[in-house]
């Protein structure tokens, strides 16, 4: 870019010089050059060089600002991706031995529907989890129901089924380690992770 502006600059200077030489002074004999006119020509030449340099500087400044804007918007885009990812990862929770979506969690899933719609290449995996109170092996089936319930919700809101995988970890991967209702309530959940298409995410 810099080289280009230099070429432009020298081009402009050449044009200015040519213009001067094609414009003979009115009151001087051609044989005897007028000192004033020479000086004027020289001044004009210098002015045009300065002007061209200033223009080039201005152009450079504009270019720099444009670059900055691109960089800023890229960073902004990154922030969006991060924000969308966080939104996407928001857990939903379940009642004991239940796999139906709680009304208060429906809005969280609606958000995920919007994200999936705004990012057509995004594919996710939903994993269902349980608390430690139920039977260990039954909890694998229950976790599967919880993941499937979420998938059904998303699909019924227009998301293509192939974009959502479901898995179950039963009670094998607790978030909270305690043995009380507070911990159990945290552990009865669906988790969401990005399988593909999550590099740059658009805000819905």
């Amino acid at each position: 870019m810099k080289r280009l502006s230099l070429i432009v600059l020298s081009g402009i200077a050449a044009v200015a010089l040519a213009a001067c030489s094609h414009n003979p002074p009115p009151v001087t004999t051609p044989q005897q050059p007028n000192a004033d006119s020479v000086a004027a020509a020289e001044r004009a030449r210098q002015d045009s060089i300065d002007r061209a340099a200033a223009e080039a500087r201005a152009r450079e400044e504009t270019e720099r600002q444009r670059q900055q804007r691109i960089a800023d918007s890229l960073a902004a885009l990154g922030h969006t991706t991060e924000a969308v990812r966080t939104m996407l990862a928001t857990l939903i929770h379940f009642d004991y031995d239940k796999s139906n979506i709680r009304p208060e969690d429906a809005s969280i899933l609606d958000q995920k529907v919007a994200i999936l719609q705004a990012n057509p290449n995004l594919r996710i995996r939903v994993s269902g989890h349980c608390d430690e109170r139920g039977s260990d092996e039954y909890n694998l089936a229950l976790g599967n129901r919880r993941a499937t319930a979420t998938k059904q919700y998303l699909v019924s809101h227009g998301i293509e089924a192939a974009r959502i995988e479901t898995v179950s970890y039963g009670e094998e991967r607790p978030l909270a380690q305690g043995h009380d209702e507070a911990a159990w309530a945290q552990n009865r959940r669906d988790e969401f992770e990005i399988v593909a298409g999550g590099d740059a995410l658009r805000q819905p």
Partner: protein
Amino acid sequence: MALALAGVALLSVFPAVQRSAAQDSSAVDRGVRIGIIYRPGVRPGLVVLPGAAAPDSVRAIIARDLDLSDRFELITLPAGDSIRVSAAPLAGAGRPPAGGRGGAAAGLNYQLYQALGADFAVGLALVGDTTVLTVHDVAAGGVRREFRSRLPPLKDPEFRIAVHRLADHILEATLGVGGIAATRILFVMDGKVYAIDQDGADKRLVSSSDHQAMSPAWAPDGRRFSYMEFWSGHGQLFVQLVGPGKRQPVATTGQALDFTPAFSPDGKTLAFSRATEEGTDIYTVNIKDNCCLQRLTVGRFSDNLSPTYSPDGQRIAFVSTRPGLPQVYVMAADGTDQQLFAPFDYGVTGSSNAPDWSPDGQSVAFHRDVGGTLQVFVLDARTRAVRQLTSLGRNEDPTWAPDSRHVAFVSDRSGYRQLWIIDLETGRIRPLLQQSGARLPAWSPRIPETASSTP
């Protein structure tokens, strides 16, 4: 002790009656009472004879196995020295048994041991590198059986299981029943599969990978076992050889969440649960030829899981959520004739899970939610009567011993979750290992002699 002595008196008249009573208190022989009051719970007395010849560890392991069999009153000799003085030494331990009623030939003071309440006496001697096990019938006053075996050296991983086998020989020789000494229990701890001897010794890791493991299950031959591992959210089943530890992924599994494997009694088929978006259903796969996936249940709005075969291979008990909460159901092994197995009161009885069919086919153990905690229950497969086995703490995931009278399960009765063993005949209960976090136990069949005992 009073009971034991009464038993001795009884046994001296009708030893056969006493033996059958010890095996199964419900099967009382009618017509042999003749003025004798039958007393269930009276067990034959057994004494493990002192003697310097056999290594202490062998004697100790056998005495402990006999105690843990819950079939004998083990008689501890008061002051060992005085007994030894009064009893004739085991001079002819290395000789062939005198057999029959020639008790004196074995050189044992039968009257003395009878007076102490012993019905059987077990002698151990080392002749060269051969361990000689002599089982005396004290009441009959003679040697009943003699076993000779060359035990592996003490440090050998085969050593303990070989000694356990001697203990099982004693049960066969005295009571005519199979023992549980030479058995192991698989369980899961920290996502890995471990094995432990039934007496709580020799805990060892048998399967360790980066993947979380669950639900170990023995093959009926005692040479292989199966279990599930999580592979990126899917459940992959493996069949592993006990000895070399080599494992094979089970064909067709691993694409979905496959779990709770269960071998058919002929060892050719593996039944398991598969969770898909349609729910969880029971499938079988031929593991002999690694083929032929079959779906046994179709429960679009219910889950079907945790299969367990009847020992004749004809039926499969399993868990189904078709009544709302999970309950124990049964079907033919091909998936037909599905019906409720363990009765329950709708809206009252809690969830029932984790069925395990006893090796004698008579019972199915499972656990059921009682007031927010889990308890082990036993279902009579014929009458379908259900009885609660435990009540203290949370008790779950029962697994039958090959004698169909001992059950191992997970309990937090001591404050943390660990494995316990209960004897259904005597009610005696003992912890299997003093360590928190053990779960999902699976009791082996009798470990065959040809199988390497190092899982």
